């Protein structure tokens, strides 16, 4: 079951380009505006003066170097998961396991940073190695779903969803048990968290200042985004992904290794999720705790879904959701508007864009 089953065997003879650029751009903007409008109405309905809520939102989102940096860091996580999603989706696979892949990435990054003997290594290896290990582990976690899909035919929506829940509770277990990642129990009240990772394993800040704590995660993500864009548009892998996504049987018949393409696609998606987890841990949280993944995997999934296959779509949606959350936090603090409002806006955007997508595509095809 592919998330984007082609409605017709033969719609896309209009160029893909026009479909990807024209449609989501204009329409997504309209959807965002409408959602914000509804949000404003709700604010008014709750009796909060707009004159208070809007400035709070804006200052929270864009008001300081810190706010912008925090939003950018968050968007990196969303974007990585989203990039993985669209890549796998090109092969007809729907990876809804971002949350679990983040959790696994966090677990492994913590383990390596704390116990991998990386502290003290030269050349940035202390922070690079945990990231690589987390990437690999996330890849394996995603790859499991790929193997199941390729070998047993298990629907990957289902397996990745289940793997997510399993990973989240695995993380719970890891920080509960002293034999695993829990910090040494100095007193009987030691919290069930990992110890803080050493400073050398934390991601360097681009500016070097906590006032604008953008980590090197941002440039890494941008490089990966470009890479994914090139892979999808121009590479042999991109071609194989598309072929397998559109018709696995015919692809197999023509000599494309379908099983390994599927596993690879899921591996990459999982790896990007794992990397996102490492960045959440090494970039900001520094200790692993239950609830570490914070639902970012699901946000990243929604980002990927909204992007409808395009890398620029992923980046825009990731930025939108990241800044939306920053604004929401400030709005609650300064204007007393519950952050639940952000969820309403987010949900509306998702529904409107998803709802209109096929309809617009359809109208264009029959025009």
């Amino acid at each position: 079951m592919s998330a984007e089953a082609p409605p017709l065997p033969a719609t896309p003879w209009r160029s893909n380009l026009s479909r990807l650029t024209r449609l989501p751009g204009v329409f997504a903007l309209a959807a965002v505006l409408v959602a914000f409008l509804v949000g404003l109405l709700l604010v008014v309905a709750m009796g909060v003066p707009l004159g208070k809520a809007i400035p709070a939102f804006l200052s929270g989102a864009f008001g300081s170097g810190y706010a912008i940096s925090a939003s950018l860091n968050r968007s990196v996580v969303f974007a990585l998961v989203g990039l993985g999603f669209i890549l796998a989706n090109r092969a007809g696979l729907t990876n809804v396991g971002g949350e679990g892949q983040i959790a696994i990435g966090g677990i492994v990054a913590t383990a390596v940073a704390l116990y991998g003997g990386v502290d003290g290594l030269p050349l940035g290896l202390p922070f690079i190695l945990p990231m690589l290990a987390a990437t690999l582990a996330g890849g394996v976690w995603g790859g499991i779903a790929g193997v199941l899909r390729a070998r047993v035919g298990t629907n990957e929506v289902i397996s990745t969803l289940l793997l997510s829940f399993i990973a989240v509770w695995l993380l719970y277990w890891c920080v509960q048990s002293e034999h695993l990642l829990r910090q040494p129990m100095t007193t009987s009240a030691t919290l069930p968290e990992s110890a803080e990772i050493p400073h050398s394993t934390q991601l360097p800040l681009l500016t070097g200042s906590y006032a604008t704590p953008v980590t090197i995660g941002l440039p890494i993500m941008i490089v990966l985004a470009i890479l994914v864009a090139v892979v999808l548009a121009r590479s042999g892998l991109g071609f194989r992904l598309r072929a397998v996504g559109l018709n696995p049987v015919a692809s197999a018949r023509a000599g494309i290794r379908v099983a390994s393409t599927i596993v690879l696609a899921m591996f990459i998606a999982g790896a990007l999720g794992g990397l996102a987890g490492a960045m959440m841990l090494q970039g900001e949280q520094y200790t692993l705790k239950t609830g570490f993944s914070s639902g970012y995997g699901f946000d990243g999934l929604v980002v990927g879904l909204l992007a409808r296959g395009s890398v620029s779509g992923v980046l825009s949606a990731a930025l939108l959701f990241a800044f939306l959350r920053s604004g929401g936090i400030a709005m609650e603090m300064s204007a007393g508007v519950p952050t639940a409002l952000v969820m309403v806006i987010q949900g509306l955007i998702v529904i409107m864009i998803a709802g209109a997508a096929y309809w617009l595509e359809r109208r264009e095809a029959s025009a």
Partner: protein
Amino acid sequence: PSYAEEPLKVGILIPGSKTDHGWMESGYDGLVAAQTKYGDKIAVQMIENINYADMDQALTQLASGNGLVIGVGGQTQASVYKIAKRFPEVKFSVVGGNKVEEDLPNVAGYDVKQAEIAFVAGAAAAMLSKNGAVSYVGGLEIPSIVNAGAEFGNGARYINPDIKYFENYTGDFDDVAKSKEATLAAIAQGADVHYHILNLGLRGMEQAAKEKGTHIIGSYTDYCGTDPLYVAYSITGVGYQVQYAIDQAVAGTWEAGYKPFGLAMGPQASDMIVCEGTPEMAEKLKAIMQDILDGKITVLEG
């Protein structure tokens, strides 16, 4: 017309829901009490329901605009210590904070000491139980909660060595259905007085007790007389500690460092009240509390 005094700016981060009927709400109650007390003298910014990934940002924003920042709950501790380093001029208080290895000059940790009062609650439960069986339901299996459970059992056995004691952890302070089933399971074993460290999950325990005619010892705040289901209350001063932080900051006596609350800080911080208890009961409980303070009875931390 007096000169306009700059109000003390207080930022408070409640990681869970301020309406959880438990820990978080208790902390929020403390804030409301302080607001009533000080009126315009304090200005408050509050945020609730914050997950780990957003906690640093929320704390940073609170720290950027306030002189005192309070984190309600041990789960804010790691984040507070991180952010506090970046805002040396801002005071931070962690309610439910533990001892840490390296103290910061601008962070105070207030230890709630739930295990102490749980021991006393166990003693009270043993006195109130008719069946000779009591039970405890905790949310997450974290040390303070587990230790409190253990001490509740110890307290019960202190009064009645043969008492049966059942404990359970639902994995979620707010899961109503699970805490109901956990309580029902204990009732099936004969338990007739229940203690808990739960938030919204308490509703489930109430429902079970109501259906089966058993009784509950409440936590956090004294509500004696409002609900016949509750035969006693243990006071755990989460709200008191929020007030304490604000009081101290307003008075200019705020101090960094670890501070154990519990029984040592008096009945507002920690106490045990049996709603329709006999004088002997009250006497006995008082004695136990004194023994704990004197170190004659030692209890786990948390």
